[in-house]
């Protein structure tokens, strides 16, 4: 049985993943910014969880790094321990929006890279202190190669992927497994209004794959799995082809 803290569990892939955990009896702490949203998600997980599951709500805001440490401590206390930390929270904006609005760009870059790394750092310390565990963060296939529709978002995610890989190399021997999830296009509130490409996934499908990845400690999880092949092909494309295909 796992004791899991999830930053971002109130919606999208985080919500779907949290449900999978409680449906098999794991304990889950819902970390989120809005008190009301956290409360509603806690209620949902309590109703869905198998008897004996414990669910707790903890305030935490990806925009405010000062909340990270207290949040993880509160989660550990409420669940009587903590062995898995997941972060699905993040921000998305189209390249066009980011180019138009530097303050939005600063926000997306900060949340998706710096603050996510800072959150993982707090999680790393906490998990290492108890002798290891699993740290799972949601990066993106957008970080696998510089591409014109996601220049900035992709750069932030590339940085995050590199950080997670480094962390995994450094600490796996000490018992801390790092799982870097790279979702392809998934239909969630974050991608609302964007045209879905082929192979677009649903949060539930992603959650299933990620749950297996967390259980097995898989360093890099593509979800849906087809994206591993898609990204292998895209990474192999020569620059002069990439320049032409426009994605």
């Amino acid at each position, binding site marked *: 049985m796992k004791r899991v803290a999830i930053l971002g569990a109130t*919606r*999208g892939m985080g*919500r779907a993943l949290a449900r999978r955990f409680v*449906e098999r009896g794991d304990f889950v702490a819902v970390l989120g910014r809005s008190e009301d949203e956290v409360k*509603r*998600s806690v*209620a*949902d997980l309590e*109703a*869905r969880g198998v008897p004996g599951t414990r669910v707790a709500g903890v305030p935490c805001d990806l925009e405010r790094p000062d909340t990270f440490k207290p949040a993880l401590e509160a989660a550990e206390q409420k669940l009587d321990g903590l062995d898995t930390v997941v972060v699905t929270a993040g921000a998305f904006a189209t390249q066009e929006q980011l180019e138009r609005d530097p303050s939005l760009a600063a926000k997306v870059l900060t949340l998706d890279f710096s603050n996510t790394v800072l959150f993982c750092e707090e999680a790393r310390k906490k998990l290492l202190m108890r002798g290891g565990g699993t740290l799972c963060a949601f990066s993106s296939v957008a970080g696998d190669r510089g591409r014109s529709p996601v220049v900035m978002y992709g750069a932030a995610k590339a940085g995050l992927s590199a950080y997670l890989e480094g962390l995994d190399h450094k600490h796996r021997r000490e018992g801390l497994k790092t799982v870097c999830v790279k979702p392809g296009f998934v*239909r*969630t*509130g974050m991608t*609302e*209004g*964007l*045209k879905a490409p082929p192979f677009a996934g649903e949060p539930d499908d992603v959650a299933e794959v990620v749950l297996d990845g967390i259980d097995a400690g898989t360093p890099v999880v593509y979800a849906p799995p087809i994206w591993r092949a898609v990204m292998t092909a895209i990474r192999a494309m020569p620059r002069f082809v990439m320049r032409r295909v426009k994605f």
Partner: protein
Amino acid sequence: MTDSRIEGWGRTGVVGEELMPDHLEQSPPVLFRGLGRSYGDSSLPPSAHPVVVNTTRANRMLSFDGATGVLRAEAGLSLLDLHRTLLPRGWFVPVTPGTQFVTLGGAVAADVHGKNHHVDGCFGAHVRRLKMRVADGRVIECGPDLERELFLASVGGMGLTGQILEVEFPMVRIPTPWIWQESERVGDIDEYVEKLKESAHAWPMTVGWIDCLTPGKHMGRGILMKGRWAHSHEAPSRFPSEPPNLRFPFEAPEWLLNPLSIRAFNLGFYWKHLPKKREGVTNPFSFFWPLDFVKDWNRMYGRRGFTQYQCVLPSEAGTGAARRFLEVLTRRGGASFLCVIKDCGPESPAFLSFPRPGISVALDIAIRDDTQALVDELNEHVLKEGGRIYLAKDTFTRPEHFRAMEPRLSKFLAVREKWDPERKFRSAQSVRLFGDPS
């Protein structure tokens, strides 16, 4: 934002924008839509202002009382999701339609009914509270004893009174997750209706499928199904497994459904039930939701799609009403795949709730050039019998026909006038039937 085609289950559609917010309360004041299983245009936005809000991301349970079964949940929660969680624990919805791909909000808005209508009424009869956002932006609670008018207009109100955000109702305890079913082959429509009525006394769930192509002596022969939850000594101890997930793989060409293929299907369905009577334990998935096995089965009807014609023929129409209906249908050559017949119990106090005491008939009709004329003729007949049609299925009914069928309409429209005088919440259907601005 990208425009795309928004379709009803019968594949009638409009090009527009379907918003899918995480938070329903932040959505614009337009029509809500759930899983889009209403057949006609009731979940479609008006064509001149084609924006609709899809509620399915609002799918959280907000409280479940394991002692009483009372559940409160966000309106976008589907019966499928709900049953996956609660059926293994011995809970079932008080009323289910023929598909699990329906949201709680949709079940309320269409006031859906099921095989137990003659005993338990419609879904709305079990609802204790609705949380709604109305046209002036206020979020309010209503129920049978709170803002009763708004509640009665919203149950069966097709989403036209406001946005349903949350629904509260009690789930029902079941002895096992299995169904004890008896089915029998019945030779013609009169015998069928008689047996249906007779079974209503002894069985909490009844329904049947009839062949509506064969004229004459065997008109309306079919299979009558009766069921109840199985007791633990009858049922397997394991949990019934969900059926395999198939998908209708392509949009079928129009010639696939022709009088010959439909006749062959009807014949096969009738004679597949070789023994006169059958009984035994069956799994709830095939009993309640037989068509959910095949995703996208509406593609079978090709590009033009289909319409479902569902009407209720009231008890006052007397015996033979079902036969008279089938006579009109067969004379008109209205070829339908199976036709579903079910008896209805008392009428709900909700203003536009469809069922009333009598016989409900539902048939799927592939859309062809003469479909409007066929629906007109059926409507004129149903009017003569004092019956009415079901809005959740309708695409073709004319406003004058609907008004004539529905004496309660003025009451509904008066409540709507009070809560939404500007008609912010309107659908392609309300434009067609109630004269809303497009």
